[in-house]
């Protein structure tokens, strides 16, 4: 056994309102640079939907993730090491998405809005950020936002095609949910495994997957290896970039930008201990529907004295173990089993987990036209508007039982709390049917509904000061070697003003006028 610590996230989809605050704050922090305009390290998709890039879940097209070879051993779906060279894939990567599968980034011709008075209202036309030419917008980020009920996007969702039961995409039965997506920081990361240069790596101390910008040679196999399509290619620097899990914040014990700014408080961050020696074995489980449970078996109980002893022996810090013991991720994923990994059937062992949404069915019980009998909840979930099959295809590789028991548990917890706050009787025996007690139901309610900052984010300090030679790390974690990428050249007038001897306050007053950047 070799214990490693892994930082992970849980997203409570029940509370996601699809406001895109996470995407926007992430973009402002990480990808508002030339060459990175089309990248969204975090994006929110409407499901069912086409997704970003288009149909990313269709692995028969993109060949991302892992598969089992004829001997039952793990193998990259894009082909083994020799196959990549033999088929000339190094000269042309057949599985790579094109820019149009994401979208061509654009800005607007804002200058035309200023000028002398004209007969017609001036219009700012869209201008490509790559060619600088005017363009007709045909696709963009979240082009199908909130359009999940429409037959156009319905058919194109690969998860829908796997559902055997007949779901009609008519208006009365339409359903949708939001799926915020970021890099999964997988335990069995296929992007890391695909990189010929060895530029991609998992950090030993917290499992964050990063691209070493100095060693990246632009092979692009990571882009195609990742089944979630969360590694991007910067067309300006010709290197791969991806979600960094905001490692500079995580190292200081702060949550990622997306989690910090989430208005719905749906995101939880914590650590889990896992057995690194067993990852490949767990990923080789032949049955897709059992992969979720197989992944769960990797996580170790941080309160078990034997595990703690072994963790110390493997160099895991005291602070990390304490964080693992209080981890909201461990609680939701392992103890309560209400959070699930995204597409475990890709055999990547992803570490961003999702609590399945329940809202439409709860309206059935709690809303204006609700039925009186709470006993109806179990058959009610089977008839839920978001089909259990759909959630199972998304989150458990088709394991419907796991999804159902999570939904039962969440619904029962809500019925219990509702009865308690409204002073009604509640037969607490019912809680036992979903493995809850009065105490655990109350604490789960606090975690999910109240969601205090310190309950949501249990992040240990990284203690970089104990690591020698931080200078060696220059360039291996970020983007400082990226010529022409910083914003400074674009806003150089500000720096000229500074040279001319103006005070900071003067520059600020001149540059930010009413909150608008006036360069």
């Amino acid at each position, binding site marked *: 056994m070799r214990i*490693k610590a892994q930082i992970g996230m849980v997203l409570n989809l029940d509370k996601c309102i699809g406001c895109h605050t996470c995407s926007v704050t992430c973009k402002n922090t990480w990808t508002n640079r030339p060459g990175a305009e089309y990248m969204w390290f975090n994006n929110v998709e409407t499901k069912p939907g086409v997704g970003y890039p288009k149909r990313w879940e269709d692995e028969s097209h993109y060949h991302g993730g892992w598969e089992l070879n004829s001997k039952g051993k*793990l193998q990259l779906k894009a082909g083994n*090491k*020799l196959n990549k060279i033999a088929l*000339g894939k190094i*000269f*042309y*990567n*057949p599985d*790579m998405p*094109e*820019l149009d599968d994401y979208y*061509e980034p654009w800005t607007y011709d804002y200058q035309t809005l200023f000028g002398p008075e004209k007969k017609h209202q001036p219009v700012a036309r869209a201008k490509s950020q*790559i*060619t*600088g*030419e005017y363009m007709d917008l045909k696709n963009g980020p979240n082009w199908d936002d909130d359009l999940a009920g429409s037959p156009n996007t319905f058919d194109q969702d690969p998860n829908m095609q796997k559902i055997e039961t007949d779901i009609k995409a008519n208006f009365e039965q339409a359903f949708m949910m939001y799926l915020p997506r970021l890099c999964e920081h997988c335990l*069995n*990361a296929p992007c*890391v*495994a695909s*990189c*010929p*240069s*060895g530029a*991609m*790596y*998992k*950090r*030993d*101390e917290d499992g964050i997957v990063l691209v070493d*910008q*100095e*060693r*990246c*040679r*632009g*092979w*692009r196999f990571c882009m195609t290896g990742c089944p979630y399509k969360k590694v991007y*290619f910067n*067309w*300006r620097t*010709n*290197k791969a970039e991806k979600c960094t899990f905001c490692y500079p914040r995580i190292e200081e014990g702060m949550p990622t930008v997306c989690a910090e700014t989430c208005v719905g408080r749906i995101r939880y961050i914590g650590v889990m201990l896992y057995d690194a020696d067993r*990852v490949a074995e767990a990923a080789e489980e032949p049955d897709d529907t059992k992969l979720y449970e197989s992944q769960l078996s990797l996580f170790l109980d941080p309160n078990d004295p034997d595990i703690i002893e072994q963790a110390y022996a493997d*160099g895991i810090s005291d602070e990390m173990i304490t964080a693992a013991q209080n981890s909201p991720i461990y609680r939701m994923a392992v103890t309560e089993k209400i959070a699930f990994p995204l597409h475990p059937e890709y055999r990547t062992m992803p570490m961003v987990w999702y609590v399945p949404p329940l809202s439409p069915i709860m309206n059935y019980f709690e809303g204006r036209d609700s039925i009186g009998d709470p006993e109806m909840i179990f058959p009610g979930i089977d008839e839920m508007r978001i089909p259990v099959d759909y959630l199972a295809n998304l989150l458990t590789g088709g394991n419907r039982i796991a999804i159902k028991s999570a939904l039962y548990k969440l619904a029962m917890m809500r019925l219990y709390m509702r009865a308690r706050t409204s002073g009604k009787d509640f037969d607490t025996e019912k809680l036992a049917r979903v493995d809850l007690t009065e105490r655990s139901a109350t604490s789960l309610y606090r975690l999910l509904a109240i969601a205090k900052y310190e309950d949501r984010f249990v992040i240990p300090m990284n203690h970089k000061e*104990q*690591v*020698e*030679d931080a200078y060696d*790390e220059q*360039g291996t974690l970020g983007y400082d*070697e990226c010529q022409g990428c910083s914003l400074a050249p674009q806003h150089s007038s500000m720096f000229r003003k500074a040279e001319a001897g103006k005070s900071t306050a003067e520059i600020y007053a001149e540059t930010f006028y009413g909150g608008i950047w006036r360069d």
Partner: protein
Amino acid sequence: MIASHPFQFFLWSIYPYLMLGSFVFGTIIRFAFFHPTVTAKSSELLEKKTLMIGSIMFHVGIIGVFFGHIIGVLIPKAWTDALGISDEFYHHIIAMPAGAFFGILATVGVYILCFRRFHDHRVFHASSTGDLVVIVALTAEITLGMLSSFVAGPTNPDFNYRTSLAIWVRQIFMFHPDFRLMLQVPLMFKFHVIFGFMIFGAFPYTRLVHALALPWQYVSRRFIVYRRRPKI
């Protein structure tokens, strides 16, 4: 002899060393001090369909052509004579068909890539000046090479590169080139050689350097890479 042909002496005895020196030292400097800048500069994200045909044809072709040059230039005629391989057989059965096959692949490929680089708006706008120069230079050099082998060669039946040009190339690597061997070579070959050395000279400073960045370690590497920082 040198005094009467100073320019020829420079071209065939000094210039190759200038260019090879630039190639060797430039490559060392690029890999030692500018290692992060070594990438293939892929534009597949911006355009994919033409790239598929162009890139595969060009790369397969150019690798074949490269080894063709090595065999043709570095194996002395005396060796093939000793093996009983006649000139006729060498040229018409081995060199010309293989050369034509890989040469045509490389030529068609490089023309497609050149067209793509200038014609596709996204690719053109994302290109540096160096990228544009490189693709034009390769197109010109491959064209010159094809013209040498399949036009200048057959129209000068007296000229056999294996008894003049190839000996001179081998002499370069033995550090005593005899520039007189090059005087009677057809003009097209001369241009091909001069231009070729120029490309080698410019090689380390352009995107071409990616040809030397082969990921040998990947073959034997474990799949998942962990990086640990040593604690104090």
